[in-house]
């Protein structure tokens, strides 16, 4: 399957600051790809390069088989980079009308995208009177105006209230199931975990991991709370690697062996007060990866 976005060795330097440092990234057709990283990690700079707004210092970038910023590529890409930017004196409808003029899109499509983001009722109001959430939704409407194959959204749930965030995530998930490819940046781990198929983690300008979300979360673990803990920990190493997390023990073992683990503990005279399976949260993995990288850098 040919990748829609292929990035290798991408670097962007601003004076003495290396904003993006040798990033490799691949987005496959039809997937929702989460580009995850803390603020200032280099996500927006990378997305700006993908949309042709800034030129890379070095590296290879192919978007939809062409160069970023080419008319043919832009015509098949919808994007919202950083905060949504529109003309404050124009209505939401007029803002979309003029974007439709630039892109050669029909009037009917404007009505469709307004409906899609639930802005039809306020479409004739000035953009300057919109709430942050409405501005964000208009930004997504503008990104979908060209009925694009590839949608690039930079932190699309910023500023939305909980209900707005839920609706936006559902919309993005639907875009993925419709066969569109979505590249979504976020610093919200839960968001990426909920809606993305694959995730790339960037920290301090460098990619630290790129995997399927399930793959990244790795094997499931057994969570064990038992007393005495030291004896339990010693015994559990027979089943797999054990690490302590707060006052529980995490054992990397097939969850199907839970009964066997429980029996072994009880037979050894260890009191078991809790035993269940747990998936590693993306949040844990993110902090493991970014902390490990920082330690490596310091070392």
């Amino acid at each position, binding site marked *: 399957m040919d990748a829609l976005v292929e990035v290798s060795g991408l670097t962007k330097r601003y004076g003495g600051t290396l904003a993006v440092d040798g990033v490799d990234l691949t987005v496959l057709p039809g997937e929702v790809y989460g580009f995850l990283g803390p603020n200032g990690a280099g996500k927006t700079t990378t997305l700006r390069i993908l949309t042709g707004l800034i030129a890379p210092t070095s590296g290879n970038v192919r978007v939809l088989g062409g160069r970023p910023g080419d008319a043919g590529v832009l015509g098949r890409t919808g994007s919202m980079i950083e905060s949504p930017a529109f003309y404050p*004196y124009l209505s939401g409808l007029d803002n979309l009308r003029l974007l439709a003029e630039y892109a050669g899109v029909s009037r009917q499509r404007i009505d469709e995208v307004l409906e899609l983001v639930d802005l039809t009722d306020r479409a004739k109001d000035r953009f300057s009177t919109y709430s942050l959430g409405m501005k964000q939704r208009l930004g997504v409407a503008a990104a979908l105006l060209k009925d694009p194959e590839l949608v690039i959204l930079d932190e699309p749930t910023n500023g939305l209230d909980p209900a707005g965030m839920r609706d936006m995530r559902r919309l993005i998930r639907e875009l993925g199931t419709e066969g569109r490819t979505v590249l979504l940046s976020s610093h919200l781990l839960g968001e990426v975990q909920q809606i993305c198929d694959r995730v790339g983690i960037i920290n301090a300008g460098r990619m630290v991991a790129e995997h399927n979300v399930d793959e990244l979360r790795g094997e499931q673990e057994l969570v064990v709370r038992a007393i005495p803990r030291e004896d339990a920990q010693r015994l559990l190493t027979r089943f797999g690697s054990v690490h302590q997390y707060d006052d529980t023990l995490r054992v990397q073992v097939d969850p199907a062996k839970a009964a066997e683990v429980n029996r072994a503990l009880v037979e050894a005279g260890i009191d078991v007060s809790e035993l269940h399976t747990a998936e590693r949260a993306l949040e844990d993995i993110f902090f493991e990866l970014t902390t490990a990288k920082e330690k490596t850098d310091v070392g």
Partner: protein
Amino acid sequence: MLGSYRAEILKLRKRSAVWVLFGAGLVLSLIFGYLLPYLGYATGDDNPQTDGVPRAEILRGMLPERVVDNTIGGYPIFAGALALVLGAIVIGGEYTWGTLKTILTQRPRRGTILGAQFLALGTMIALWVLGIFAACALCSVGIAAAENGSTSWPGVGDLLQGLAGGWLVLMMWCLAGAVLAVAFRNVALPIGLGVVWILGIETLLAGVVSSLLPSLKWLANALPGTNAGSLVFSVTGMAAGDAPPGVRDAVGGGRALLTLIAYCAVFAVLAAWTTRRRDVT
């Protein structure tokens, strides 16, 4: 290109600042071209000891035959400053609002979008010129009717030449505002620098050169304001003595025309080159 042009026209048409600037230019033209001279005409006398300008001469300046003078007489300085502000707010606004990234991620290339913006500005400037001309023409007809003055008009060729010259002067200043906005990615700084240049520095430089450094006259004669004033002077029937500020016969009409075209080309190319090469952050 046509879609981008339509989009730019939509932006200009719906932006109130564009019409406020046009209104200011129109009102200034009518005040200095008709209202103040008419008050002088109505209240003055022919005594050379009081104001020195015969009433008949004041009236002649307001009749249809001098409509081109009154339409474009203020373009080199006052309307020029307003045109510079127009260029600065239209192009600079894209940077301050961050809308440049929105339009550059649609389909057209950067050069196409900038070309469409300049074309739309040229259209708006043409509307300004025609609007001011229409208002001046109405005033001159009204005054001719009220004072039994002559209603003869300039020839069509003179009229077209005058309006085209006025358009070029305003377009040159508008592109100056646009290129400053691209350079500074801002609205306020280009307006400040541009207006100070038009209203102060050029006049000051011309004065210093003519009184202290006559050997640098070639430099003063190459400045945009000097050539704008010279072009207006050459396409109107003004006498050097009664020309409005900024309008003078420093260089010939042909040379002024070519210099202004060259300034327009340089400003447009500089803006396009910078826009195409620079990162949009």
